[in-house]
């Protein structure tokens, strides 16, 4: 059952790669077609001909199966001059869309999965950080996250302690802010936009807005693809396939506070497409 996730916004194509053939895809088991019309406009219809709302933002084409009560979430940094906007491209993952987001929120796995890039042994400790569900914005936020990284970004040549902030503005989207090696005082923005195809299958569209005048665009794309592909093999082997929302299922540690808040927020809104409600 889709439930209230029906009314959320989801990415369904990369605007720049949408040709005249369009893109036939799915959103939460509903087949749809993203069409590029003759004049260049974009139209989205379900298989039975129903027209869906279209938003073009952050390089992607967004839509919703229901009636969204709010517009697509804002990322103010996306409009900041001087940022390079990086379209990383789609990667299909056989996992729950919610698990894809949860993995993105986790830092404890860095030394083990992104070895010598985003983390390295013995620097495995996750220091205390702050997590809250911001009522006004209705978003999950983790702040004051710090982690030692051997190569935090394409533009980083040596190890640094990186500051992070995580934000979940929609059930299958997350925005990460991290120390910008090229411009201290600013945050690099790295997002994970997840298109749920089925409860255990998703198309993931990473996207970034970075300050980096040095690296060629292809290097920026490849850096992020390499990181995400390291996650992909982990995501496809997680058991159970659906994200458990029953607290009896797993024992979280302090490092998992963001995940705990994310799950609590999902549960509160009944965002359960891709979730397992009762321990099995």
């Amino acid at each position: 059952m889709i439930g209230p996730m029906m009314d959320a916004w989801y990415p369904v194509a990369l605007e720049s790669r949408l040709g005249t053939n369009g893109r036939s895809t799915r959103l939460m088991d509903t087949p749809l077609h993203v069409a590029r019309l003759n004049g260049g406009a974009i139209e989205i219809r379900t298989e039975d001909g129903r027209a869906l709302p279209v938003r073009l933002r952050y390089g992607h084409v967004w839509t919703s199966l229901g009636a969204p009560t709010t517009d697509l979430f804002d990322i103010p940094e996306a409009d900041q001059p001087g940022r390079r906007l990086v379209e990383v491209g789609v990667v299909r993952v056989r996992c729950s869309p919610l698990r894809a987001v949860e993995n993105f929120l986790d830092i404890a796995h860095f030394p083990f999965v992104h070895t010598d890039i985003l983390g390295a042994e013995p620097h495995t400790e996750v220091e205390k950080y702050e997590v809250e569900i911001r009522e006004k914005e209705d978003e999950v936020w983790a702040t004051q996250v710090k982690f030692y990284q051997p190569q935090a970004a394409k533009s980083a040549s040596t190890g640094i302690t990186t500051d992070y902030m995580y934000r979940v503005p929609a059930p299958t989207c997350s925005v990460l802010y991290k120390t910008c090696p090229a411009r201290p005082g600013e945050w690099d923005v790295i997002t994970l936009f997840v298109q749920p195809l089925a409860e255990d299958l998703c198309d993931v569209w990473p996207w970034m807005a970075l300050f980096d005048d040095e690296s060629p665009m292809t290097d920026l794309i490849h850096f992020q693809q390499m990181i995400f592909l390291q996650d992909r093999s982990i995501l496809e082997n997680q058991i159970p396939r659906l994200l458990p929302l029953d607290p009896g299922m797993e024992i979280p540690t302090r490092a998992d506070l963001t995940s705990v808040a994310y799950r609590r927020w999902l549960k509160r809104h009944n965002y359960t497409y891709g979730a397992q409600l009762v321990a099995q």
Partner: protein
Amino acid sequence: MKLYDYILSPSCYKIRLMASLLGVPLTLRPVDFHPGEEHLTPEFLALNPAGTLPILADGGLLLTETSAMLVHLATSAGPDWLARHDPQAAASEQQWLSFAHRLTASLGGARLCDMFQRPGDLASLQRQGIMALRELEVRLFEQRLRQQAFLASDRPTIADIACFPHVVLAPDGGISLDPYPSIRLWQRSIRGLPGFIEMPGIYRRHELSEEPDPDAANETAEQV
């Protein structure tokens, strides 16, 4: 040597891996294969009309076939990687070097289809991939009976490097490697070679790198 490279391509990784095992430095030129399809631009089609990656340039030499690149690297920097010592091994090396193309077409095709949604008949590619894996499993099993850990010989050759990446990444295309014990042992032999490098989905040989703690073993034994 300059390699036109895509970090997630198993075929490009073959060349990076071979060069690293031989200690040959490469200059990498990253190509935006996905999502940009830079390899299909006129500039690249002029270099390689087949529109494939990798491409290796060395002086006046421009190679677009991975087998030729492996031969070139080994001939110039590590003749031990060529099975020239006996006619049977030399022929086997050629056999498995050519066989690698089937892995690229089937397992590699399934991976592109499944992961990046490139066009293709996924079920048929997976079927062909499984056929190829079964053939490889039989060969490696028989090689072990002959006390040989590698495809053509008792030591690794370019044929092993040609077959290795697409096999390890088969799960990316939805094909499990669980049914193939000989393939798993062979993989470990390669992952433990000095100079081995990783790519996403292909990792160092962690599981055999440390001795088990003898005290822990005793405790377990006592409990039993």
